[in-house]
């Protein structure tokens, strides 16, 4: 059996475990596809071919010996290059970090994926230090959109979006501080899960904004997303923000009905500042679910403002010494934003953190009467690479700062979200399926039913 380019992780794992395909064949197929297409997509910064082949051979040996293999046996995956990969410096999209010593140990989430049988094939391009919504990178070049390579992949996990959207690998991992999983998912037409803050360990990944950083998976199907997510759950003493809750597997719940769920469209801020394609995408999802109720999310625009302030100041604090010592080695756009962030008065940061407390209580109240909120993931489909401005609701605004206006108010309070791809023509666009804290299972169930209905799907890459 040979792998098809868009074979799902579940399909590969089943074929490998059933002896119909070897893990090595699955790995070689992914490596060949990377070789064939990544010259254009530029999604990979490192290909760990030797390591991948060794891991795949070990899985095949286990199967030959009759040993039980994990639920991701032989599934190739790749990680945003802010994850520690043993033997590589964790560059986090930067030039500066390339001078770091190679990581001695993999990030916790890589260890857990490999414990489930997955095979790491490489590290992925990203916006410098994750301060980005575009997927562009001055040091490595932009990762490109697999549906139109003149367009953005979305950031900052641009390589993750491009690699999965281009079907180079069925699963990738990324990070989301303000939208960096959901934005590339939207632009590249794939599924992405930003779990509840604290759900998945961030141990041995390069940070950006400690109180906003999340890690999570990208995939081409909801089942694959749940498979990866379930494999990565669990407490981890190496991340002080990681929950001590036990495993809460979602895969067995995916097929549960959703008719008992109370679903509403997020109103106010989430219905403003959108292009027609974002309106159409939310409308299709709402119609398929029979949802007409609109719930106003109070002060969401202010929540976005507060997230912006916390991000720029915490980010500046993280990089302060590098800004002093190596300012010319930063992407100038990132450097100038971080320097400005270092100059924001502390009183405003404290106000933002207090507002965050207030806003979290407002959303908790909303989730007493609804189970799911639906909102756009991005205001538009993928802009052109290098595009500086767009016209949003009649106002000319910078693209870079405004792509995440609908994602930021959600990650600000750590809610779990599945970004689902609506396959519009000529480009896909994502919708956020938002649930209450710790209810990733609900967001995944809704995404799964939408996928079964054919309303959301990862389109075949059209640009490669």
């Amino acid at each position, binding site marked *: 059996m040979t792998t098809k380019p868009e074979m799902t992780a579940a399909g590969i794992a089943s074929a490998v475990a059933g002896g119909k395909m070897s893990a090595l064949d699955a790995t070689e197929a992914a490596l060949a596809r990377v070789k064939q297409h990544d010259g254009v997509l530029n999604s990979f910064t490192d290909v760990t071919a030797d390591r991948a082949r060794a891991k795949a051979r070990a899985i095949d040996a286990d199967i030959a010996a009759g040993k039980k293999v994990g639920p991701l046996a032989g599934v190739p995956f790749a990680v945003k290059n802010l994850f520690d990969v043993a033997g590589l410096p964790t560059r986090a999209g930067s030039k500066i970090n390339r001078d770091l010593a190679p990581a001695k140990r993999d990030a916790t989430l890589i260890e857990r994926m490999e414990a489930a049988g997955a095979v790491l094939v490489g590290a992925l391009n990203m916006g410098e230090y994750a301060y980005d919504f575009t997927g562009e990178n001055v040091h490595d070049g932009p990762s490109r959109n697999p549906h139109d390579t003149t367009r953005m992949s979305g950031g900052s996990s641009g390589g993750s979006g491009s690699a999965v959207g281009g079907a180079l690998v069925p699963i990738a991992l990324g990070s989301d501080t303000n939208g960096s999983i959901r934005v590339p998912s939207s632009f590249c037409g794939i599924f992405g899960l930003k779990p*509840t*803050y*604290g759900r998945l360990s961030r141990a041995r990944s390069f940070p950006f904004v400690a*109180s*906003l950083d999340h890690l999570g998976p990208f995939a081409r199907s909801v089942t694959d997303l749940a498979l990866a997510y379930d494999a990565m759950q669990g407490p981890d003493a190496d991340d002080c*923000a990681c929950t001590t809750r036990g495993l809460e597997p979602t895969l067995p719940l995916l097929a549960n009905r959703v008719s008992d769920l109370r679903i509403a469209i997020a109103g106010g801020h989430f219905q403003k500042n959108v292009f027609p394609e974002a309106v159409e995408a939310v409308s299709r999802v709402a119609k398929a679910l029979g949802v007409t109720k609109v719930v106003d999310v109070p*002060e969401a*625009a*202010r929540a976005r*403002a*507060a997230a*912006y*302030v916390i991000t*720029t100041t915490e980010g500046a604090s993280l990089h*302060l010494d590098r*800004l*002093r010592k190596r*300012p010319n080695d930063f992407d*100038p*756009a990132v*450097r*100038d*934003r971080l*320097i*400005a*962030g*270092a*100059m*924001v*008065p502390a*009183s*405003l940061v*404290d*106000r*933002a*953190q*207090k*507002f*965050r*407390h*207030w806003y*979290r209580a407002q959303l908790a109240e909303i989730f007493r009467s609804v189970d799911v909120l639906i909102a756009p993931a991005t205001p538009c489909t993928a802009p052109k690479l290098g595009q500086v401005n767009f016209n949003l609701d009649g106002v000319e605004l910078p693209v870079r*700062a405004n792509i995440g206006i609908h994602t930021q108010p959600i990650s600000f*309070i*750590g*809610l779990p979200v599945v970004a689902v791809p609506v396959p519009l023509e000529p480009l896909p666009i994502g919708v956020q399926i938002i649930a209450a*804290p*710790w209810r990733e299972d609900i967001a995944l169930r809704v995404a799964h039913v939408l996928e079964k209905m054919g309303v959301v799907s990862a389109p075949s890459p059209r640009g490669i």
Partner: protein
Amino acid sequence: MAEPLDNYIDAVSKALALPVEEAWRPAVRANLEVSLRLGRMVDVFALPDETEPAPIFTA
């Protein structure tokens, strides 16, 4: 003529020993203006004195 924020940028740059070359100044100023505008948006929102910050966030 110096922009209104320039003196502030100079003072903080000195206080933090953070270099701001002249070529970077317009972009630093523009970014700071955005951050301060959004910060003011948060600032004007009245909150009870007892409101706790959420620097260590719990979902």
